[in-house]
């Protein structure tokens, strides 16, 4: 940026992703936000260069097909906007599949959002028939010291990425907290596979993104 830092403002937007944006991938989300901001005629801070990009950070990629009750995006503007005005403009220009929960202005010196995320909570509703032995499968999975799995041809250990895993309110759902850092991301589909469940036959909802380690390890 060649703009003086003093005129930039950084906002952190907390929002839910509903059915309408469930199948939107990460690159498409960036374009979706840019177009929404352009429709709202907000003073987007663009990067320099041959093809300027809006200055935005996304906390953590939401896999295609997931719903979310908590997503985080930081956006930089070239002037201050009243929070209420911003909320109103965003609400009328975002597609129906995004619901704003909270907006706050944050310090420009806050570290990049993607480095702040530590963990994520997921709720997974399972489509297959009632599983009488699901609790047993969970118990035996958690008893393991390591869970060897492979993703995109790379072997890794899933076990340390699972912070917690339990049955949900019904026998048809799971609740889990997984590590969610750039180099150590636990994927709930992988947990289902490790439980010997069809990862495609489920509805995933990200419930929370934790910016501090939920196990209290800072």
């Amino acid at each position, binding site marked *: 940026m060649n703009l003086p830092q003093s005129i930039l403002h950084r906002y952190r937007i907390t929002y839910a992703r509903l059915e*309408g944006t*469930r199948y*939107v991938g990460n690159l498409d989300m960036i374009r979706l936000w840019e177009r929404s901001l352009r429709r709202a005629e907000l003073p987007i801070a663009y990067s320099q260069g041959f093809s300027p990009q809006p200055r935005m950070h996304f906390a953590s990629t939401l896999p295609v097909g997931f719903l979310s009750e908590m997503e985080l995006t930081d956006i930089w503007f070239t002037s201050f906007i009243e929070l209420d005005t911003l909320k109103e403009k965003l609400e009328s220009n975002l597609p129906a599949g995004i619901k704003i929960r909270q907006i706050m202005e944050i310090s420009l010196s806050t570290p990049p959002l993607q480095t702040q995320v530590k963990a994520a909570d997921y709720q997974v509703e399972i489509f297959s028939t009632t599983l009488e032995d699901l609790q047993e499968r969970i118990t035996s999975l958690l008893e393991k010291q390591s869970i060897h799995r492979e993703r995109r041809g790379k072997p890794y250990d899933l076990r340390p990425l699972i912070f917690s895993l339990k049955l949900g309110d019904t026998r048809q759902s799971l609740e889990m907290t997984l590590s969610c850092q750039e180099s150590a991301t636990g994927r709930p589909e992988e947990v289902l596979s490790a439980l010997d469940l069809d990862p495609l036959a489920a509805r995933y909802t990200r419930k929370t993104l934790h910016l501090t380690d939920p196990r209290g390890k800072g």
Partner: protein
Amino acid sequence: MNSEQITFSLEQILPRVQKPGRYVGGEFNQVQKPWNQVDIHIALVFPDIYDIGLPNLGISILYDLINQREDALAERAYLPWVDMEKEMRIGGIPLYSLESKTPLNQFDVIGITLPYETLYTNVLNALDLARIPLLSSERQNHHPLVIAGGHACYNPEPMACFFDAMVIGEGEEIIHKIIDVIKAGKRAGLSRDEQVRLLSKLQGVYVPSLYTVTYSAEGTIESFKPTHKDVPTRITRQMAAVLPPPPTRFLVPLVEVIQDRVAVEIMRGCTRGCRFCQAGWIMRPVRERSVQEILAAIDAALKATGYEEVALLSLSSSDYTHIHELVKAVRERFSGKNLSVALPSLRIESFSVELMDELQKMRPSGGFTLAPEAATDRMRQIINKPVSTEQLLDTVRTVFQHGWTSVKLYFMIGHPEETIEDVQAIVDTCYAVLREGRKIAGGRAKVHAGVSTFIPKPHTPFQWVACDTIEQITAKQEILMKGLKNPNIKLSWVDPKDTLLEAWLSRGDRRTGEVILRAWQNGCKFDAWSEHYNYNAWLTAFDSCGIDPFKYSHRERSLDEILPWSHINSGVRTSLLKQDYLWSKEGKTRSDCREHCFGCGILTEYGDLRLSMPNSTWQCPEV
């Protein structure tokens, strides 16, 4: 299945398919109306996948116009890609509309656009997935009326048996008349037959079932007649005297599609009269939008969409009367807003340094495209695109001087009376252009030659001529491939088998319908996709119908025979097309008809229309 069941099933199958965002709608500006609050429900279908279909301007215009009515709604459907089709067939999910997830067979009207011929088998696949009988004759009163529109309808015969009605010409006004007729008919409880009979009375609406064809022993058309006295013998194309306001509330997709941008048509029609160009002959007269209207439309569309690119569309942008004023105004008004502007279809000869100066300021992206179409003066006279090689090189020099390093040149092989020398000249021209580029841009200069193969299209002066054979095309392409082996020249060409299918489907007659049905039954679909196109399956389909496809593509037709599309009146007199064809054989060119009226027929055919619009912006000279 009803819409709730479809929604439920989609959740089960979408995780299993590529790019599931294609199948759920939810675009910004999508219109969703309560089903029971309107009288007429229309599903607009683009018969290819979402990524290709969403940006279609024809569908965008109709979607906007229909949804502005209080008594009608328009929803959309596209073809599922093969992975999704498989899941839909296994799961028993019918083709549904994206907006309300309603099965297509619940609509009153299915409107299918046919912008090009290689979509024909997809139409059958769409109807099959929608559980609508493929043949118009097999549909019952409770089935939707299946109506076609788009440029391929100018030869409606190959697809005639699959449609209840086909719209010839521009859709903006006729769509309202069609809805009015269907709405009144629905209220009166009319049968399908009664409905289509009433539709046939609208100018521009062709109802194939109301005509019979007989053939001679040689297989040519002997007669083509309406079955009733009150059905018109010829169908005159529908045309708007003044272009209606352009759409601005474009659907903004949530997933990536091709040509993801605002598109504003700056004018319609072309006065140049290139003999190979169907669009130039069937979209007359030239009607321009004012600079003010275009600017207002861009402004409104950007506010409504947030797009970062605008395309200013026409058949020949540099012929737009106020092109300088427009480009300058666009740049001034939208500069600093991270907006890129695309102005395709610039003509070599109507292009000035001032225009180039303006274009340069508008974030030129990629290469610069020009379409000489042929490389010798003789050939360009035959096709009536009389630019000289010097003009081309002058323009190219200016392009390179303005900072572009890559030039794309469109050529065609297979023009009537083309010789090997004419093909070799394409090679020589590419090198001449590259040399100009090297003088200015040095080693960065690149030339991309896009060489397609000529197909004689209906309603053009070349409609009687024959296509090159596969052997001729292959021989010509070899000259290009050998000649253009250079790291700074890229050559792209069209597989001759693709060209032939397009030729058969665009030049076919009513008997081709059965072939299309067989081909689809043999598994043909997505014929425009090289990975799906199956030439041999098509040959088998022709063979099983006892039809020689090469007679459609390689037989020169006699000037007095009844052509499959003779009953379609584009407004241009057949006698003028004949004269122009004969002129081509003499190497005689016809100048831009803005300068001199040749009496193409438009002013006679649509005289009343012009008189009713005293301030119309037709670019025809006074006669």
